[in-house]
């Protein structure tokens, strides 16, 4: 199993006391599988994404990626995991403002010590060929989103975590991007977990998890 979570709890200290955000979350995700994570605002989707990416650690429970328990890793170990195994697509892109599109696309792969491969070909598929020498500030939100997707795909991670990756795209382009991600994940033998509010997009993936008030309410085939 590529991703395995068991009995994950997470809470945060707030002014009104300790606030549980996730409770008893358990699920698996196999290689080649795609999964949509849905839920209301505040249901814990982002927190779960951050835990899966090793950006944060659970209070209880285990999260294993290819058999490695994230919580047992130190800072450097989790950084290594993010660099080499996990690929994150942020809702607000989080591109590197000081690098142009070409360097942003290849950045994660090179950071992981991998050959980014044919950057131009991917840029062509992403509709970014004419923008390779531009900087993020010179792109529209949709173009930046495509760069963020391309950056993750070129890094060839085993687990792709995407947070509303098509939120800034029109429907047709969004569908094309989802298709590209599914195709890439299948080719790489990786897995995709995507946070979305769109039931239409969720329906394009293999499975759907629904979070309600921090608990897994449904685990359904899409």
């Amino acid at each position, binding site marked *: 199993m590529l991703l395995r979570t068991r009995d994950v709890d997470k809470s945060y200290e707030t002014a009104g006391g300790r606030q549980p955000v996730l409770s008893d979350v358990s699920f698996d995700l196999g290689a080649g599988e795609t999964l949509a994570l849905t839920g209301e605002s505040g249901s814990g989707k982002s927190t779960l994404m951050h835990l899966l990416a090793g950006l944060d650690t659970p209070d209880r429970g285990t999260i294993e990626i290819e058999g490695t328990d994230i919580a047992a890793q130190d800072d450097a170990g989790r950084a290594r995991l993010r660099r080499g195994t996990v690929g994150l697509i*942020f809702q607000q892109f989080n591109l590197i*403002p000081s690098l142009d599109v070409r360097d942003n696309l290849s950045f994660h792969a090179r950071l992981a010590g991998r050959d980014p491969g044919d950057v131009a070909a991917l840029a062509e598929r992403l509709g970014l060929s004419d923008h390779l020498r531009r900087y993020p500030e010179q792109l529209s939100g949709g173009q930046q989103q495509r760069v963020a997707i391309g950056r993750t795909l070129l890094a060839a991670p085993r687990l792709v975590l995407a947070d509303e990756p098509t939120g800034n795209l029109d429907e047709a382009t969004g569908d094309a991007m989802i298709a590209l991600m599914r195709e890439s994940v299948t080719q790489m033998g990786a897995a995709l977990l995507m946070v979305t509010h769109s039931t239409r997009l969720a329906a394009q993936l293999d499975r759907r998890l629904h979070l309600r008030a921090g608990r897994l309410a449904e685990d359904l085939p899409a």
Partner: protein
Amino acid sequence: MNRAALGALLAHWRRQPLQLLTLVVGLALATGLWTGVQAINAQARLDYAEAAATLGQDDLPRIEGDLSLDDFATLRRAGWPVTPVIDGTPPGPRLRVLGIDPFTAPQNGATPDLTDTADLTAFLDGRLVFAAEGTEVPESLPEVRRIANLAPGLVVADILAAQAILGTGRIDHMLILPEARGDLPPLAELLPDAERVEALAGSEIGRLTDSFHLNLTAFGLLAFAVGLFIVHAAIGLAFEQRRPLFRTLRALGLPAARLTLLLAAELVAFTLLGGALGIVLGYGMAAFLLPGVAATLSGLYGASVEGGLTLAPAWWLSGFAMAGIGLAVAGSQSLWQLARLPVLAPAMPRAWARARLSTLRRQGAGGLVLLLAAALVAIFGTGLVAGFVCLGALLLGAALLLPPVLSAVLSFGARRAKGALAQWLWADTQQQLPGLSLALMALLLALAANIGVGTMVGSFRDTFTGWLDQRLAAELYVRTVDEAQATELRAFLEGRVDAILPIVGTETSFEGMPGDLYGQPDDPTFRRNWPLLDAGPEVWDRLAAGEGALVNEQLARRTGFWSGAEVDLGAGGRREVLGVYSDYGNPRGQAILTLDAFRVAVPDMPETRFALRVPPAEVPALADAIAARFDLPEDGLVDQAALKGFSLDVFERTFAVTAALNVLTLVVAGFALWASLTTLGTMRLPQVAPVWALGLTRRGLALADLARALILAAFTAVLAIPTGVALAWVLLAVVNVQAFGWRLPLLADPGGWAVLSLWAIVAAALAAALPVWRLWRMPPAQLVQVFVHER
């Protein structure tokens, strides 16, 4: 409305205490360094004015020439309302003795009160003299009464007593009292050799020290400018961070004019707070540095300045004014932008930390124009003000050029970098440049000032040491109490020394300016060692034949008379300039005749000072023998090493204040760098968090931040070196020549520059330490917040 809006605006500072601290401390440092320097200058000028006011001598016309008390009697008998004055420096601790006639001297607040008959008798008898509190006087002087209103270092005595103390029978000049009758017999009939000189404008010491004070002012202004960089950066940052708030306030109905007014009021509050702190700081700095300045002025010009500081209202008011001007300069751009801010301006902070190519180009072009202007002023400009204009253009031009040059270097580095991390580091450093550029410009100015002034002082020290070796060639210097003792000494020294070289001189005027005329025997000592800068053919033979005179560099530069020209040497007559010699540390013009020519020109001058040539090994024994045999004055016997030591000590003290200001300027620049790095450390979290999320550790990010600070400081230091060398050249070849009248060679000090560059890198490491440490230890939850805020 005002209260609510002001509350919202001020809430920013509650949430950003570090920014508030940066702003207030920056303003306080800028104001403090400026007002401190002004306090020192004001105190020194006050003391000069006191010194000049003793007899009001600079405000009255005077009669000059080879004068005695008989001449005074002649003029009085003819009805001239004159008073005799003798003004001189006796041996021993630096002291100025002013001899007056109590019956004819003009009465003002600074003349001693002699209404008591007993005091008058004691004064006329030479048993009583007057001096200011704290003035050190030798025990050989009679009873000293301390009085207020006298300048420090000044002793007032009866004219006869003063003649005895100074060992002369002459008087310096006679002051002509105001409102003299118009039908007096002409001076030319009564005293054919005397001349009337009209009142001087301002005090003589004041004029002599003007250049020194101008130097201090320039340093104060430089430190003020460096401090303003901090203030400008803090205000600009606060403006950008509050941009969304401004938009909201405008959208809620606050007029643009009212918003601008409220922010202006905020600036006024900062002026009062930063200004008050700056004035306290400036006062402390001035009190700390004043003794050093006093030593400098005494060493350079013989000017006496009290160690105490007077707190004048004009001084602290000017401190507030400078704080206000500083804030107005630093905040005007933000206020202007605010006044023109559309209601629907983007709420996101403008990418203030984003390089704008066009801005960099304009900045670079401005820098080049200023450097060109500096070069033109250096070549074609004349006068001290031109020198300082040249300095200002050079420093500002170099500072403006720094960001574009750094941007180009970093861009080159990014293109050549291998690996994603290195490429990101170079590119990200370039990205941070606008946010750091003001601090880096401040660092460049401070480093350049250090290198420039350090090189000047180093060049001065080396040249001065070499010059001392030449000028102080004799092994022993002796001064006798009178001519009888001098004759006895000469007889004693026969056969004991290789040569006895009399040193004899008098004050006179050269081309109408005060100067000193010396007589010097023809001796191989001078022929071998005298440091000539310019000389005609067979200069020493012609001097020995009495065909002309040697003049010092100061006199040559002031009059424009070099070898071959004829110059009016006052008592020495009109003579050809045979050669020009360097004479560092002496603000006055000086000329040398051969001893025989001097004796003819100034016949009655007592010869009581001698330089003795003797094998060095025999110096201690001879000195002991002379001391045992003769009752010489307190400092009547000085060996060459002691004299050199004293001269070098004066030199070191002279530049102590400059060194202190150098260090303070560097500290201000270090603070600017720290403030900018700390602020950026907080602001750029959204740029750092994604890189962390992509797999770089916090440690790696922290080390990258440290490397960035070191890279920028190193490049700034590299660029500061040519700027500093150019600054040194301007100081040595333009400012010094105008201010002091001598020019020194520029001696490079690569070792010193390397050490200073290393210090800049250390300062950058220290400035970056806190933000780097924060990033290293930052809880992951805080970095994750960057992504949480997205939703």
